[in-house]
């Protein structure tokens, strides 16, 4: 009989993995008992996002980078499929149950477009978008561990100034609804997919199986988020709220900000994090990614690459910009691109175009900032 070492298995992997599963289940159960079943379910949805995003190495920034640098569209195809799957269910559901369920429809404006462009730059600098930064932090990426707190502070600051930026000029929220919205959205997604297929490198046009699986699971989790929470999947609001709570705890006066002094904001700052929708899914994403990284043999034992000081400074700056710009843009890849388009918002499409343009620039900036590991 082969021993654990002889068969290539790491001793004690089973107890470690059982402990990870048990800890995740206990966390969900604890939130259910302390805050209510709905909030425990939302933590479970977040855990699911973390498990699938890290487990299948799926995300937003990486596939965009693959398309721009190598003309590999597989990951982007999967994003479009996931968005389409959500749209098919979400748009008719929101039309039928308006009020209980809301769409991620936001106004298009100058600051929104500029914010999405800057977000695209910053997310390629740190190689992580809203969900990607959470996943990477949970899986032990040191860049994300620094970018995440900066992201939260930036989100807080962006929300502080948000009304000033929207006053520069913006349209009312525009979008499509119901089954007509499904048809328009699917047609738009198909058009983008056809364009990507056309410009993709030969021999690299196929959709990878792991990407397809990830797209289906992410779509199912996003729909679960909508049905349980009553709102689409988002990331950025929760991060800003964490910083707002921290600022308040340190004695800061937020009454000078029209955003944070608004009644709803004051109520949420004073309420438990364990009752905030996006905070719970964000926490779940970090935990889920940690579970996967710990589950893998050697997942957390890789050594951290040496980076120059300017890379860490760039990371902190990009983290702040990720947070600030995503508030101006009414969301990140998740809240604006994924949830916006899948619930019929025109701003999601504009966000996509602006952030993709920014990504092209961000990819070029990354080596100059010292963020490619030394060899």
């Amino acid at each position, binding site marked *: 009989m082969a021993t654990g070492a002889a068969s290539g298995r790491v001793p004690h992997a089973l107890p470690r993995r059982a402990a990870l599963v048990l800890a995740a289940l206990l966390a969900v159960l604890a939130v259910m008992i*302390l*805050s*209510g079943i*709905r909030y425990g*379910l939302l933590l479970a949805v977040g855990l699911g996002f973390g498990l699938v995003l890290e487990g299948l190495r799926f995300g937003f920034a990486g596939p965009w980078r693959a398309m721009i640098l190598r003309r590999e569209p597989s990951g982007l195809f999967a994003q479009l499929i996931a968005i389409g799957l959500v749209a098919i269910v979400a748009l008719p559901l929101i039309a039928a*149950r308006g*009020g*209980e*369920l*809301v769409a*991620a*429809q*936001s106004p298009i404006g100058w600051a929104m477009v500029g914010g999405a462009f800057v977000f695209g730059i910053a997310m390629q600098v740190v190689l992580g978008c809203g969900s990607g930064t959470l996943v990477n*932090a949970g899986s*032990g*990426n*040191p860049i*994300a561990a620094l970018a*995440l*707190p900066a992201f939260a502070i930036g989100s807080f600051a962006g929300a502080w100034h*948000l009304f000033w930026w929207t006053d520069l000029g913006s349209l009312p929220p525009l979008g499509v609804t119901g089954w007509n919205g499904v048809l328009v959205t699917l047609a738009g997604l198909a058009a983008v997919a056809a364009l990507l297929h056309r410009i993709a490198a030969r021999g690299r046009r196929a959709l990878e199986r792991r990407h397809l699986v990830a797209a289906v699971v992410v779509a199912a989790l996003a729909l679960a988020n909508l*049905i*349980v*929470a*009553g*709102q*689409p999947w*988002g*990331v*950025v*609001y*929760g991060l*800003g*709220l964490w910083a707002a*709570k921290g600022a308040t*705890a340190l004695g800061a006066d937020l009454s000078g900000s029209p*955003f944070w002094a*608004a*009644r*709803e*904001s004051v109520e949420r700052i*004073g309420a*438990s*994090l*364990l*009752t*905030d*929708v*996006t905070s719970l899914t964000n*926490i779940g994403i*970090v935990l889920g990614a940690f579970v996967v990284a710990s589950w893998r043999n050697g997942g957390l034992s*890789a*050594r*951290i690459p*040496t980076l120059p000081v300017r890379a860490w400074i760039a990371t902190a700056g990009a983290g702040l910009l990720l947070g600030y710009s*995503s*508030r101006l843009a009414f969301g990140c890849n998740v809240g604006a691109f994924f949830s916006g388009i899948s619930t019929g*918002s025109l701003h999601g499409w504009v966000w996509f175009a602006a952030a993709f343009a920014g990504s092209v620039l961000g990819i070029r900036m990354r080596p100059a900032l010292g963020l490619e*590991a030394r*060899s």
Partner: protein
Amino acid sequence: MSVETTGMTRRISALFALTLLVLLVALDYAANPPNPYRVPSIIALGSGAASAGGFCGALPD
């Protein structure tokens, strides 16, 4: 081609991130404990209640 590395592993940075999260939740719990006797329905769909969570795409009234 090899990549220069530090002496630290990814376990350190993962635990750093988790510690920050645990501190955040613990401190918030101490300051703003949730009320388990005042909870919304299990799921929003079919609850009859308006959606009320904070979202990055929405502005406060």
